[in-house]
């Protein structure tokens, strides 16, 4: 009995430590690729900084394009993590333990990526700090009535809280690794262990703190993407100005986030031999989340359109019809395919069960979600209220380069994380392991 438990725990430690030694060349290659992308992105941005936004495809009337699309996309990606770990924690959903660490990491890096775009897309990024309330001699502060200021606050808060949430969970595992390693590695893990010893006293505080984090993070998740949606909903641009946006965006964010988690976990699981820990049941649960959120999204889309059509002739209707039939109609229908139709296949156990099918659906969702943001941002601006100014927008290389760079940036951090920190929460698994053992004992008896 007792030996069995110890055995389980040991094997858990073993798998984690193995996971920290992923296939060397594959890993290095991926890092190299992401670094290249980052370089491309940095160069592209430098062009904008030096020569102005003329290198983007933006114009009058389309003032926002791919860069803002990327921003919303990455904020969305950043949403599953906290949802999975915090909300499911509060719901005591056990299946979370295996996957939440990776998801949280994704959240943190997602926010780190998203946070860049509000700065990149500025005409004068060197004055980006003016958007923050800091003491200055001008007697002039910032406009708290502007959704962009709300953004600045929401994003930074979200980053801090989810980072601390991640660190709190990491402490015990990092401590274990610390004691198991020497030299630089030891110091590195010591940094994350923050002196953790695993005494009952520490666990006492840790337990409470973790609960509160979950309690904070849950409303935060809702608020952050609501705020992002207000960037659009607060304006009076037809196609943006809608009270539906906050729930609609949150659902979308969760959908894209969970989809991204699945897209990442499937290969990670293979590459790091975590099959024993991240089982098919986990994916099954996650894909149920995908179905749920996708249905909510479908509902939102239809509401948006029905309301616009019921509103009768006018900018609102013109804009939405344009979205579906205008210059970017393929984007719109691809979005519908990815976000509404694709996930429906997950109702079939066969699709849900096969990782290939699941992976495919989730990639499709990711594409669909990016396109959704693009459609909302661009098509509404293309058809604003004055028909004389109706125009079109075509992304330019610079914007594509920066988008590429953002992916590079995200995956660079994520790869580092996989190499250096446990991608699964060992301590919580150990707790489970003990329960499992008890169950077996009960069965045996």
């Amino acid at each position, binding site marked *: 009995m007792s030996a069995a438990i110890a055995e389980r725990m040991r094997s858990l430690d073993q798998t984690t430590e193995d996971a920290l030694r992923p296939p060397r060349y594959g890993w290095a290659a991926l890092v190299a690729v992401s670094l290249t992308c980052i370089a491309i992105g940095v160069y592209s941005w430098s062009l904008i900084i030096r020569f102005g936004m003329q290198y983007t495809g933006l114009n009058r009337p389309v003032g926002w394009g791919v860069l803002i699309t990327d921003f919303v996309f990455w904020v969305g990606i950043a949403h599953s993590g906290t949802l999975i770990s915090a909300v499911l924690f509060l719901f005591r959903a056990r299946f979370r333990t295996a996957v939440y660490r990776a998801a949280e990491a994704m959240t943190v890096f997602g926010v780190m990526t998203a946070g860049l775009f509000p700065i990149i897309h500025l005409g004068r990024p060197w004055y980006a700090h003016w958007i923050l309330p800091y003491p200055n001699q001008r007697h002039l502060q910032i406009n708290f009535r502007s959704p962009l200021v709300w953004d600045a606050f929401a994003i930074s808060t979200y980053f801090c809280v989810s980072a601390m949430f991640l660190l709190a969970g990491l402490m015990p595992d990092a401590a274990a690794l610390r004691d198991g390693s020497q030299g630089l590695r030891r110091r590195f893990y010591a940094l994350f262990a923050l002196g953790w010893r695993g005494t009952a006293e520490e666990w006492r505080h840790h337990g409470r703190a973790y609960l509160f984090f979950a309690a904070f993070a849950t409303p935060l998740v809702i608020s952050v993407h609501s705020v992002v949606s207000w960037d659009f909903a607060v304006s009076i641009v037809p196609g943006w100005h809608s009270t539906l946006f906050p729930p609609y965006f949150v659902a979308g964010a969760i959908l894209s986030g969970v989809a991204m988690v699945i897209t990442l976990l499937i290969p990670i699981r293979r590459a790091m031999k975590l099959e024993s820990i991240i089982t098919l049941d986990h994916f099954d649960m996650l894909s149920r989340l995908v179905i749920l959120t996708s249905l909510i999204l479908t509902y939102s889309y239809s509401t948006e359109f029905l309301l616009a059509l019921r509103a009768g002739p006018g900018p609102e209707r013109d804009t939405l019809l344009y979205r579906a039939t205008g210059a970017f109609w393929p984007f719109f229908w691809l979005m519908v395919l990815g976000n509404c139709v694709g996930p429906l296949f997950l109702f079939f156990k066969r699709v849900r069960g096969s990782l290939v099918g699941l992976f495919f659906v989730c990639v499709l969702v990711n594409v669909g979600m990016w396109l959704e943001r693009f459609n909302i941002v661009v098509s509404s601006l293309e058809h604003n209220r004055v028909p004389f*100014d109706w125009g079109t927008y075509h992304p330019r290389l610079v914007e594509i380069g920066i988008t590429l760079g953002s992916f590079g940036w995200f995956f660079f951090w994520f790869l580092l994380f996989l190499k250096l920190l446990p991608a699964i929460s060992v301590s919580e698994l150990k707790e489970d392991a003990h329960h499992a053992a008890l169950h077996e004992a009960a069965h045996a008896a």
Partner: protein
Amino acid sequence: MPGIGRRFFLKVVSATGVAAACSPSHAPEKLIPLLNPPENLVPGKPLFYRTVCRGCGAGCGVTARSREGRVVKLEGNPDDPISAGALCARGQAELQGLYAPDRLRGPLARQGDELKPLPWAAALAQLGGLLGKLRGSDGRIAGLRLLSRCEPGSAGAVQRSFASALGAAKNARVVFEPRDLASLRAANMKLFGRAELPVLALSRARSVVSFGADFLETWLSPVEQARGLMAGRGEPDRTRLTWISPRLSMSGANADTWLCTAPGEELQVALELLRWLLDPVNQVAALPPEAAAIRAALPPPRPLRGVSPEQVAHLGRELSLRRPSALLGPPASASGAEGRALAAAVQLCNLVLGNFGKSMQLGLGSELDAPSPEEDLYALLEEARRGEVTVLLLHRADPLGKLPASARVEEALRKVPLIVSLGERLDATARLAHFVLPDHHALESFGDLEPRKGMLALQQPVLSPLWDTRASSQVLLDLAAALKLPGIADKDFRELSKARWQAGAKALGAKLDTPQAQRDVQAQGVVVGHVEALQPALKLDGLAPLLFTKPSPAEGLHLVAFATALANADPEAPGWLREVPDVLTGVSWSSWAELSQATAQRLGVKTGDLLALSTDQGKAELAALISPALHDDAVAVPQDAPELRALGTPGRAVRLERTGKTFPLALTGRASQEGRDLARVIAEGGAPKREQGHEQGRTLVAPHEHPQHRWAMSIDLDKCTGCQACVVACYAENNLPVVGPQAAREGRLMAWLRIQRSVEKGASLEASRVALLPSLCQHCDAAPCEPVCPVYATYHTPEGLNAQVYNRCIGTRYCANNCPYDARVFNWEDPVFVEPLQMQLNPDVSVRSKGVMEKCTFCVQRIRFAEGTARDEGRPVRDGEVTPACVQTCPAQALVFGDAKDPKSRVALAQAESRGYRLLEEVNTLPAIAYQARRGGKG
């Protein structure tokens, strides 16, 4: 805690510390004081000079605003009866002509194949020597010719005396105006014995009919005519305008009726109209005694293709009832016997309707230095080709660049051994010259001219010459002195001109006894005497041959040339005139060829296709543009288009082929308002329909009050002609950069004020209307752009302006997205002002850098200036004292600006007008700008 230590923490902290510590620093700059203070120049304060605009023949008086010795803005001279304070787009752009980078910066002389710089003294000495050698025994040069633009003043006098003293031929001096209304001149000569152009008083006309005469763009005196026509607009019984032409041009867009003739059919229509008026059965009242004789001289009627007899009759009836009226035409592009015939027919209609002396005045047009008849010019060229011309002096004349290729000018010029060009820039002709002696720009020179009888306009430099140039007249005087020409005593042109205008002014009854009085007149800019218009006596002889006619042109495409208020098609035009999009087509930076939709469909042509046009004269390639308001048989090309020279004079048949290539036209704006009713048209006497379903001005929060002023504007769509003078004025006043064709294509024009167009398709082609809407920042009380700015870069000032603080802007572009009027403009790149154009920049307005949002400020600098003056004089700001550049320059006076808080102010009254409405009332932004709906035809 093992591992993580104090040291690590400190590292992080110090790193941030360093980053914070870095801050830029300027090198100390040097202040360089003046040696001697210039009198009456106060740095930082504007000086105003009165002079004359020489952009076209109209001779509008202008006021030039000068700062620190640089003229930064041109405005109309309020004391001048022609401009009355307004100025057209081309007039505004004279400024860029002055600072044009391609202006000649010093004299050039030919050495071998190329023109090399040469000091003035040397150049004049050489030239004098050469001329001296060429002089014959009688001291004259048989082969000397002087080709000059029209100079109705001292300059012309000097040239005449020079030509007659040195030249032998009787027409040694030929006056050449490519845009002259020669046909009208000729017709007036033949009909009334007066080779002059009429002066129009359209404010007196109740109906105006234009036979394709672009009298609001370039024809005769557009500023004055726009003011005249629009004086009668706005009220219920308004001046009616009928437009008779194959193309609905800008002037046509202001018409209530459009008779869409087949190309070249205007003549027939005019004759039929005349015939109808004279036909006894129509019982037109008060026919003149000559009526019968005229009727006798009329050619037999011919069937009309484009226009129905009913339409003619309808027009005739209107004209016979609504008197006085004014019939205008033909356009400058009309030429030859046909042009003369059309002109004659039009003038006879005026005579029959008794318009002369009322709306149509003869005897006022200046007879000074009238352009020579075409024959003289062609004779000169022929002589040159025969090698009889030995010396050709050109003063601001570019025959090679302006005359059709068929005139074989180059061949002629190559035969001339000595060509001297006295111009501003190295135009086509000047490239062939042996001496290029650059003239001052009009704004740099002294002079005087007689724009019309009983009027004297004084020209004075508003800044010291930018380059090493010299007044042409002075050059001629110097040469005369060097050659000891008999009869030319004067040495100094300025003195000569002064003596001349003072004499003229005295003759007009001006008091000039004291120097102060003389200065006052100079400061006035114009001397206005009184001359009565005369009743012209019709010369019946030769009437029949004059009213020559030919059958309406057959089916098939014909070339039509049209004038535009701007000069987008003219490669030599200044940036403003090229970049500001043509008001009807939205084209900037290139020439184009218009086809009707039907024709385009028939030929399978799309806008942007490169077409090969060919006539019996030659070929040219032009970008196709599908026009919603053009006769199916017409291929319309802007008259500034250089390609037109190859194709020859308009009216001739033209063949079209697709080259398969496309041309990247820079097009701006969609010519439709999708039924959103932004530019409203209402039946005469009716009131505009109000927005339904929401209460106006109702907000959740209390409206904020404006303690002192609430600056507001009112725009009368019934008066706006679409001439875009306001747009160009805005460019000039507010340092708007010219971004060039590429950026224009990408929808990145920087204009703060634009004229939006929308074509309202009617049942027939003729029924389709063009609605124009000047659109600028509406300075909303509840501006959607303001609350979304994170850094307060835009906000609402206590005086009701929607302010944009450039130096605070970080460029989120959120405000632009959220502006329902798309009134905000983003700086996609750093502005470029090619040397020396930067000298024109207005020092009272920031030059914006890349990444910054900008927009109309209601010319806040001008508001501040007026408020400052008022405060210095200890009085409140007067109504009409504050005028943004656009309002100031509007020839039609369609824009009114003022303080809406003052219930008696003109703007407050205008805003209360029954036709008044605000743009996009449904979004409830409470704009400061009120529009007055246009009154559409008979409703």
